[in-house]
């Protein structure tokens, strides 16, 4: 049966099911195939902290949202056009987020009395009028999977577990996605379990052919390739990009890479990724706790490595004292904080931007560090290199902020030619060179002397140091001098970073100023309101401490500055404090990325309805 093909500009799909249903896997496979189809895309995995929450419950629902398009896109989409709901709980949890006339593909096999009760449904939503206005496509996904796998001698449970591949196959057909990459992935993943391998492939193909043959769908959809800049692309998540950035920094600085880390959501994937690349000489040390991880990182920096540690908010809290030690000993290292919902254990799998003040100020004593923040998943690559460069050049700890959304989310990455990445110069004091542990170069950096170099034996530590000699020193004037020296060194980085750029008019009524992972949502909001005739400009900070040197100048060119943040106004506080200007804040702390429509509404509220 030949079906119509409708051409679409962009689509947002959300896959939702039990946390054991393989929704993250389904989503990431769909993402990969969509990338290969040449669309621009952005993803939002959203899963519970429980690994296998009781099946069918509302809190056990795991989702994966994907926005793909034939043009450049910035966000994973505010509201899905399509929901694939594997059970009643998935339907209930996600319904409120959907577009008004969204398509809902439901797995009717899971809509039995038990699951309806677990989802707190009094009556079956497929049978009453609660889904009015939506286009509901009822498919007995589980049952059809079982039928397709009838002939295979594996257990009923194993057959049932293949239903996500059936759903994936159906969606591949519906959105005209290539199926080969997933078939290859199944071969690679399940090659050692030939029956499971066959079952998953069969389920995938059965779903695909079901789409083709069923009369439930009268047409299928096609999204043209996106017109992105020339070059070779691959899909990359923020955590992968962070890991790649450090490997690149290691190659470009010719320093061995050391990672000290303790597993923590949502940062662990950086540890996983770096552990795989021993052939780059990468040494990953999974320490006994967060403190050991950062302390070992300091030791490795002292011994002459490019030393990094990765964590999330609660972990950074534990590392705080040691970061102060790195400030005092002036050793280069990068601390990555993939921010998550806080305080305390908070929302481990959700995103937030509430660790900015912790990063900039959260230490005892005057302990300045450099703080950077990545804007998109692929940007994590560049920021990891920039963080390494600054750490080495200024002999300082650098905190790199990403967040759960950036870390787990993914987008196409324009792979840079290796030669285009600049070398990172490193100087170790050589035997026979004049050496004073706390002398200063033109950047106010102290020299880096590697243990093992004859004649440079010296002692450093957490006690206050005498200027130049580095001996322990309690002199009041020396302390005052050194406090200022450490601060001035960080301030000096300002001369070495790009200016803050403004998108749109350089002067005007409103500047929307953002930082970190809200870049996509702000960009989309500003683009939309600009299209409707508003004059709004946008700037996005990557260097959080110190700020770019033209920041004050930029801000003062606008009557109003709006700062959207997923916290209670932490950048707003820093801006007000440093530049004595008033700003408007827009804060939503829901564990989720901003919806661009919310920012849009706030912009319109500030500027007034268009006359």
């Amino acid at each position, binding site marked *: 049966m030949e079906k119509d093909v409708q051409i679409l500009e962009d689509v947002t799909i959300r896959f939702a099911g039990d946390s054991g249903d393989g929704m993250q896997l389904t989503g990431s496979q769909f993402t990969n195939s969509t990338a290969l189809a040449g669309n621009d895309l952005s993803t939002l995995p959203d899963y519970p902290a429980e690994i296998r929450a009781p099946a069918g419950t509302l809190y056990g629902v795991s989702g994966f949202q994907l926005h793909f398009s034939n043009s450049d896109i910035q966000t994973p989409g505010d509201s899905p056009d399509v929901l694939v709901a594997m059970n009643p709980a998935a339907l209930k949890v996600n319904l409120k987020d959907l577009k008004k006339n969204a398509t809902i593909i439901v797995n009717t096999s899971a809509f039995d009395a038990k699951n309806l009760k677990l989802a707190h449904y009094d009556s079956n939503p497929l049978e009453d009028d609660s889904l009015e206005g939506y286009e509901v496509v009822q498919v007995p996904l589980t049952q059809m999977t079982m039928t397709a796998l009838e002939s295979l001698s594996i257990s009923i449970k194993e057959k049932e577990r293949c239903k996500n591949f059936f759903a994936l196959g159906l969606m591949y057909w519906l959105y005209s996605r290539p199926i080969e990459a997933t078939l290859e992935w199944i071969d690679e993943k399940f090659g050692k379990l030939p029956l499971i391998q066959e079952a998953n492939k069969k389920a995938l193909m059965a779903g695909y052919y079901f789409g083709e043959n069923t009369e439930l769908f009268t047409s299928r959809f096609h999204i043209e390739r996106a017109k992105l800049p020339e070059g070779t692309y691959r*899909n990359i998540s923020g955590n992968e990009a962070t890991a790649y950035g450090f490997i690149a920094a290691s190659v470009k600085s010719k320093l061995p890479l050391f990672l000290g880390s303790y597993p923590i959501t949502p940062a662990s994937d950086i540890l996983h990724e770096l552990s795989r690349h*021993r052939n780059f000489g990468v040494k990953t040390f999974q*320490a006994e706790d967060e403190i050991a991880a950062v302390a070992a990182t*300091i*030791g490795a920096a002292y*011994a002459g490595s490019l030393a990094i540690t990765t964590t999330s908010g609660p972990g950074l809290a534990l590392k705080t004292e040691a970061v102060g*030690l790195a400030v005092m000993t002036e050793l280069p290292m990068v601390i990555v904080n993939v921010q998550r919902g806080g305080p305390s254990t908070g929302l481990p799998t959700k995103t937030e931007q509430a660790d900015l003040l912790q990063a900039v100020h959260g230490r005892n004593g005057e302990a300045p560090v450099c703080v950077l923040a990545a804007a998109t998943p692929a940007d994590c690559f560049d920021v990891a290199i920039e963080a390494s460069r600054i750490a080495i050049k200024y002999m300082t700890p650098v905190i790199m902020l990403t967040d759960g959304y950036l870390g787990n989310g993914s987008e196409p990455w324009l792979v*840079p030619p290796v030669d285009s990445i600049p070398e990172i110069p490193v100087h170790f004091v050589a035997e026979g060179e004049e050496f004073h542990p706390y002398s200063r170069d033109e950047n106010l950096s102290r020299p880096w002397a*590697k243990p093992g170099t004859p004649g440079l*034996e010296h002692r450093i530590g957490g006690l206050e140091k005498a200027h130049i000699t580095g001996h322990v020193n309690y002199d009041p004037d020396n302390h005052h001098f050194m406090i200022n020296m450490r601060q001035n060194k960080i301030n000096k980085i300002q001369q070495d970073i790009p200016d803050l750029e403004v998108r749109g008019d350089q002067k005007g009524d409103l500047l929307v100023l953002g930082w970190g992972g809200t870049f996509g949502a702000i960009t989309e909001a500003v683009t939309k309101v600009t299209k409707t005739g508003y004059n709004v400009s946008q700037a996005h900070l990557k260097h959080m401490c110190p700020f770019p040197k033209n920041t004050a100048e930029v801000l003062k060119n606008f009557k109003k500055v709006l700062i959207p943040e997923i916290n209670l106004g932490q950048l707003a506080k820093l801006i007000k404090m440093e530049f004595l200007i008033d700003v408007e804040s827009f804060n939503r702390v829901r564990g989720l990325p901003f919806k661009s429509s919310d920012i849009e509404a706030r912009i319109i509220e500030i500027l007034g309805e268009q006359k």
Partner: protein
Amino acid sequence: MSDKTSVIETKKLTAKDFSSQQDVRWCPGCGDYSILAQMQRTSPDLGIPKEKFVWVSGIGCSSRFPYYMDTYGFHGIHGRALAIASGVKIANPDLSVWVATGDGDCLSIGGNHFIHTCRRNMDIKILLFNNRIYGLTKGQYSPTSEKGKKTKSTPFGSIDYPFNPPAVAIGVDATFVARSVDRDPKHLQAMMQRAAKHTGTAFIEIFQNCNIFNDGAFFDLTEKDRKADNVVMMEHGKPLLFGKENDKAIILDGLTPKVVSLADGKYSVNDAWVHDEFDRNPARAHILSHFTEMEGFPVPFGVFRQIEKSTYDGDTHDQIESFIKVKGQGDLNKLFMSGNTWTIE
């Protein structure tokens, strides 16, 4: 090789070469002075180039140690010396990494790092200065203070049971565990030499007198008149004998150790427990380590056990080497292009 180089190579370093010019700031009479002196005396004889020594410490009286050694040194933060040292050693396994720590630093705030360092068999030498008291914070009880001890923070007596450091180390399968004391310089030097030659975590508990806050804590073990009856020297292949006339022996009755007299003819030297440092089974070393808590038993000095096991830093290095053999040296371009890519023209 030119004559000049060979002259430099054969130039024998002395204790003075390992002494930094900084003023030593321990209290006069502190046992730490002896430990420092023995280390400075021992260092030139270890066959390790001076620039390869790295001394790491945490916080406490003992942790000032690195400042006084003219080697590379890192004075860290409280409890974290072993974690810092682990980073140094993994990053550069060529270095000889030593840690000076105290009973609070190592076993209280740093307890976690201590057990995990031993567990990994990180090639680090640990000198635990155990004075059974907090010195730098001025006299609170420590995790090795005896139960009932009256201190500033335990005016009615401590109700904590103490740690037994060698027992802890043996419990986590440390590959070299020894005990010595500040007032026996020769023995202490010998233990330092043994630790240096061991590949893997080497742990020496050093009883150290704090003459300000816990004076005389170990006098039973160090003073001439009492020492012989209270100390048993562990030596490999030799029977465990003690007493002024070597007239007392330890025998092992199943799993139960007993102190017996050799004077009355009931037992002879041949009945005594013969110490085996290299026994892979930790049971006997464990029994020995608990003598300190057993009424009527002498305190053992010497090496409880020494076994061979691969080290964490060595295994890291081996994994990298063997992975490079299989995969080839890392290539950035290949890394970037791994997985599925597509090209827009």
